[in-house]
């Protein structure tokens, strides 16, 4: 046989080559199957509803079930690792290592099911506000159909947009004991939902400076984001309101009353930083991998993230700049036409109990909007209760700002300008 005929791609198939080929394919499949199962990154399975098999943990106070045994089902879409989950130690069997994952069951969800009889279908379906809006909300709601969800968690600006479009149900607080009684006063005066009639804040967070204290020392000023010392080792956030808001604060403007002119000036500052190659990348949540690997030593950061990274890299720190920071809130909302509205309201009422809120706070580590949660947390975990990142003191609260609520035309204009600057 000539060389050509024995080539795998052009020659005739002989029995010998068929056996060779299958052996190679078999080895390939074996190698592919032998990879370690799953990754270490927190992407929990969040499968299906939790069954009420566990007794509530002794540390939590059983809240007064204001709705009794309501029963039924609840479809809840939330962000990743945003409720108290269980830590799965991963293949190495040890907690606190890089291959841990956060999975159901969630202790507070089980307590909720025990108290009310409602089965919760908890899914971590939200990765990005616009993405979730485009895939899950816009389609059904624009046709006046109910979505697949009874309760969703969206950030302020998306909540404002949904309220503006009339796609959110009003929360019926007539039977509730905890909401809005236990809601911190600051949340009652937000421009897009005064009195918190349609949104129930889930967690808040602050945007500030995330840095590697071993490489930079203690940072406290927004000027550090424009410091040539950190050229090429700086990350900005891709969230327009966070990045432009911080730039506005640095120039002395107030983001909650920002005008077009002030917006343009703040954006120009960011453009200068990008054009002079100060900024390494502009990204969303994955600034954390850059900080963890040391490629970036200063980044715009969200408060709760750094705490979670500190297990792996204790030198990482977070600070709200002395000029100020941004405050954003993720809100629970009931989409229009949700079939299980009563169950969703029961959920909101249950989670505004300080004891339950404290348990969630202990895990999630963001800023809690529930009054009395700090005191309840002191009993469970005093370190977290005294952490200024989770319960900011009055002087920090005074200098964090919420970005102004925008109407559709302005939002589009600002987003366009922002996208041009970041090259998209």
């Amino acid at each position, binding site marked *: 046989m000539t*060389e050509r005929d024995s080539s795998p791609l052009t020659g005739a198939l002989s029995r010998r080559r068929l056996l060779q080929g299958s052996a190679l394919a078999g080895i390939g499949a074996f190698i592919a199957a032998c990879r370690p199962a799953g990754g270490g990154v927190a992407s929990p399975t969040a499968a299906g509803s939790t069954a009420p098999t566990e007794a509530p943990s002794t540390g939590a106070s059983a809240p007064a079930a204001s709705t009794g045994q309501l029963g039924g089902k609840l479809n809840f879409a939330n962000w990743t690792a945003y409720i108290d989950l269980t830590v799965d130690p991963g293949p190495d069997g040890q907690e606190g290592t890089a291959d841990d994952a956060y999975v159901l069951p969630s202790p507070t969800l089980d307590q909720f099911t025990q108290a009310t009889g409602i089965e919760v279908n908890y899914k971590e379906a939200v990765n990005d506000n616009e993405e979730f809006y485009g895939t899950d909300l816009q389609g059904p709601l624009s046709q006046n159909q109910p979505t697949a969800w009874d309760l969703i968690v969206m950030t302020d600006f998306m909540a404002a947009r949904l309220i503006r479009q009339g796609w959110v149900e009003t929360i019926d607080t007539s039977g509730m004991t905890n909401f809005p009684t236990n809601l911190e006063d600051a949340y009652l005066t937000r421009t897009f939902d005064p009195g918190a009639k349609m949104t129930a804040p889930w967690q808040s967070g602050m945007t500030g400076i995330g840095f590697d204290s071993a490489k930079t020392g203690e940072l406290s000023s927004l000027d550090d984001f424009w410091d040539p010392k950190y050229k*090429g080792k700086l990350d900005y956030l891709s969230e327009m309101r966070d990045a432009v808001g911080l730039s506005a604060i640095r120039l002395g403007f107030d983001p909650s009353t920002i005008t077009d002119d002030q917006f343009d000036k703040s954006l120009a500052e960011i453009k200068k930083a990008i*054009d002079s190659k100060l*900024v390494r*990348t502009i990204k969303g949540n994955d600034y954390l991998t850059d900080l963890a690997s040391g490629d970036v030593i200063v980044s715009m950061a969200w408060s709760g993230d750094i705490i979670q990274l500190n297990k792996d890299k204790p030198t990482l720190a977070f600070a709200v700049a002395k000029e100020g920071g941004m405050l954003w809130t993720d809100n629970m909302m009931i989409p229009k036409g949700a079939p299980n509205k009563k169950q969703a309201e029961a959920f909101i009422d249950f989670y505004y109990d300080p004891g339950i809120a404290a348990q969630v706070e202990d895990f999630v580590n963001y800023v809690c909007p529930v009054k009395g949660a700090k005191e309840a947390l002191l009993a469970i975990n005093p370190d977290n209760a005294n952490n200024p990142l989770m319960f900011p003191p009055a002087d920090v609260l005074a200098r964090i700002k919420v970005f102004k609520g925008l109407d559709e035309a302005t939002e589009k204009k600002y987003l366009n300008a922002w996208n041009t600057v*970041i090259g998209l």
Partner: protein
Amino acid sequence: MGEWAFRHRQWAPYLLLAPGLIWLAIFYAFPAFQMFLASLSVGTIETGFTFTFQVSNYTDSLTRYSDQFIRSLAYGLAATIIAFLIAFPLAYAIAFRAGRYRNLMLFLVIAPFFTSFLLRTLSWKIILSDNGMIVGVLKSLGVVPEDFRLLATPAAVVAGITYNFLPFMTLPLYVALEKIDRRLVEAAEDLYAGPWRPGGTIVGTLVGAGLVGVLTWIFEWSVPAGVVFGAVVGGLIGTLFVSQSFLWVILPLSLPGVFAGSLLTFIPAVGDYVNAELLGTPTAQMIGNVIQSRFLKVNDIPTASALSFTLMAMILFAVFIYARALGTEDLTGGAV
């Protein structure tokens, strides 16, 4: 039944094509038509889209994103060239010199495809990280300055694209080289064409200088240094390794593979966005990133659709010119 089928056998080709055509119609033609209608509409995702034959979508987006278009074509071209330079010697070795190990080597070429595309790109983040195994070593040797980085640069983006599409270039080249009749090469060598007669000095110098010069310009490194380096290395490789029989017999006969391989590499490379997103920087974003942002983040469907069709048109145009340059009559015979 068989009698009836035999009498109507002229329908056989159409019936055989039917499943493929129906698939194409439902999953390609119809959505493409929808997208074309969307590209001529106005509106937002909140208020809905209305068809108004808005041609300004095309002109506006072209002027606004001209940087990203040019950059995408440049990166795609750079990735194709580098992939060609790596894949050709590889395919040559497998076709001409592998002998018993040919199947194993082909398997190794395809082996990276067993892992996911995203995972392979993410692994480059670790390899190229600032204190990692390449840049860290170079820094400690003092070859590069302390603030040098490979990640978040155009070079990293092109490297990622090249790595991801290398098998697409290697396999068609291998098939084309494998088909070459060895007796032609023997005959050329009998007629004083090598194998050791250096045929490539001038060609190597010029090609090396040109290619490396273009690449350093794309990567924003020093162009004169790149041109000199390319000329020297190209000249050396041309003199020492490229024989006349290679240049005048093997290379022309492998052109169908070159054509197929470069198309399979260039076309997806231009539209790629994962590499620019993970390995790039704000000034190195490609048109794929813009389209993704317009579609999924800003929900600006008309602009995104217009950009997609513009990109398709550009690639078709580029391929048409390329096919003319290589001469299409000989190319369909051996292309994969």
